[in-house]
């Protein structure tokens, strides 16, 4: 459904997108995972025909993003990163406006938006500016879906949304996927990666890896150890002093270290005998661990 080949985009000195290539199949929920400033928004804007790439080609639904931009605009749904609806218009008015703009009516495509719209319908007379973050998000999704697009582009839809609304939002994406819609979603949250069919890890405009969320941890090189102790700061300092550790960084309440071989776990314990309540445990790598490793090769 989406084909991207050797796409590059530069703003002055900043290389926002660097020779990116990937493909998204029909009916796939594809995630672009990366920190702020990684180039996710630029990439999505190129695919939604809002920006022109400096080099490389891309097609959406078989249409070229430059030459056939009008055709793409007719068929895709797009939800920008910021809340981009009319704050002074009510839920109903926003939805009606965008439906008409896309040459359709709310009634005609009600089936598509119904599961989402039902949740905000009690507030349909309320102005969009007075909605909570989660409700705004749902309204924006409704507006992006009201013309039944074949491909849906979502730019960081869950940034700044509470945990419950985030979960609800991803449930809705799952529902849309089950109806056969192709979805490209970007997010800085690693924990959302596992909800996608496939993900692309992106950093500084470059794609580090493209795979299923389950397969990515398999790419991890070395053995990952989670180390804990009472004095976490002193522990980190001691760990950093060990030259044979491949990497070492704070991760939640513990410290993740990478070592080359299983025997190194015992060696580590020995080096840290002075710490009280020391705990060294081998753990499977998460996507975030993989991301950190890919970022610092």
């Amino acid at each position, binding site marked *: 459904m989406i084909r991207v080949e050797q796409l590059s985009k530069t703003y002055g000195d900043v290389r926002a997108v660097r020779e990116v290539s990937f493909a998204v199949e029909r009916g796939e929920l594809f995630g672009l995972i990366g920190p702020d400033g990684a180039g996710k928004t630029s990439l999505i*804007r190129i695919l939604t025909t*809002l920006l022109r790439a400096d080099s490389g080609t891309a097609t959406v639904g078989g249409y070229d993003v430059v030459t056939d931009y009008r055709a793409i*605009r007719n068929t895709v749904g797009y939800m*920008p990163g*910021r809340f981009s609806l*009319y704050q002074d218009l009510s839920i109903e008015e926003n939805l009606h406006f*965008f439906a008409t*703009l896309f040459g359709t009516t709310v009634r005609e495509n009600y089936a598509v938006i119904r599961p989402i719209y039902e949740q905000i319908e009690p507030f349909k007379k309320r102005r969009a500016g007075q909605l909570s973050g989660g409700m705004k998000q749902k309204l924006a999704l409704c507006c*992006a879906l009201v013309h039944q697009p074949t491909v849906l582009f979502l730019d960081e839809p869950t940034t700044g949304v509470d945990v419950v609304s985030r979960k609800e939002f991803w449930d809705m994406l799952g529902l849309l996927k089950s109806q056969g819609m192709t979805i490209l979603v970007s997010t800085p949250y690693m924990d959302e990666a596992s909800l996608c069919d496939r993900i692309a890890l992106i950093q500084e405009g470059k794609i580090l890896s493209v795979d299923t969320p389950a397969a990515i941890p398999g790419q991890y090189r070395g053995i990952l150890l989670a180390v804990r102790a009472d004095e976490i700061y002193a522990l980190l300092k001691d760990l950093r002093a060990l030259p044979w550790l491949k990497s070492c960084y704070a991760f939640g309440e513990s410290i993740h270290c990478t070592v080359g071989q299983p025997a190194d776990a015992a060696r580590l314990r020995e080096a840290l005998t002075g710490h009280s309540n020391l705990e060294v445990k081998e753990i499977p790598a998460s996507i975030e661990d993989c991301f950190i490793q890919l970022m610092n090769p």
Partner: protein
Amino acid sequence: MKQLLVFVRKEFYHVFRDRRTLLILFGLPVTQILLFGYALTSEVKNAAISVVDQSKDPATQAITEKVRASTHFNLAYADQTVHQLETRFRRNEIKCALVFPEGFAEALTHTGKARVQILTDGSDPNTATILTNYLSAILTDYIGQQQAGIPYRIDVQTRMLYNPEMNGSMNFIPGVMALIFMIVCTTLTSVSIVREKETGTMEILLVSPFRPVLVLIAKAIPYLALSVINFLLILFLGVVVLDMPLRGNFFLLFGESALFIITCLSLGLMISTIASTQQTAMLISMMGMMLPTILFTGFLFPLENMPRPLQIISNAIPSRWYYLIVKSVMLKGLGFGYVWKETLILAGMATALLLISLKRFTVRLG
């Protein structure tokens, strides 16, 4: 077509739900018209005057009556001696005084010549001059009525054409109309488009089947309609409240105003293609337009007195041409035959501005 209608309706929602926009749209013109019409005129009204009548004859009484009837004067005191006047001037109780010597009527009927003294407060020279003129006019008027039986005499008569009463608002209203449209139309159009860019809604509008050029048109239509209403409101205020004459054809004035409004809207569209934030748009269209419009329209500072380079610059200001048209049609009652040149210039400007904005309006971001 249906899309355009919905878009236009949405624009009306924006206007009517935003108090700030409504205030700029209707509050600004009304206050400006009333301010310029009432407060900021060179006219002097209700100036306190004292009349010292040492003659007390029918002639002096008739003249005093005329002074009393004039709206320019407030006959506050009737003093006995010239000496008393000085105290009044010092206490700032009066702005001017009229002194009739003894035997005024007698001298007038017998010799055809009489003396009268006008005293004014020279610390405010402008007002003093104006008041002297008013009083001279009253005296001349009286003598004119008494002329029967008096030998032939030459009278120098000054007459203000089109505005014999020196009604200050006559000059101001056309200028303020030009100023208001220039500021209001330009600002509101440019800000409303740039707001879509700033809030990100432009992104969604672009990624839709709606043609980007129609965004410009849909934005211009509501402001055109509202500005026309504005025009009628200003005209109503000018004619009914400020006694402006409307000597020419109303429909000609209406058409010319619509043309000028379109020119200003096009200017606003062009600004919106340059500015990326509402603040910039506001700054360019309000600050950037206000000064040139005030300076170069000609209603505050006569263009004829300006150095040549400034005169040339003034040609590029649309409000200058509209001001000429309004004065010709409203005050002089001239027809289209006399304003076609100005009309053509405005039409040319509107076309050029529209073409530039259409060319600059991109179908993509950035």
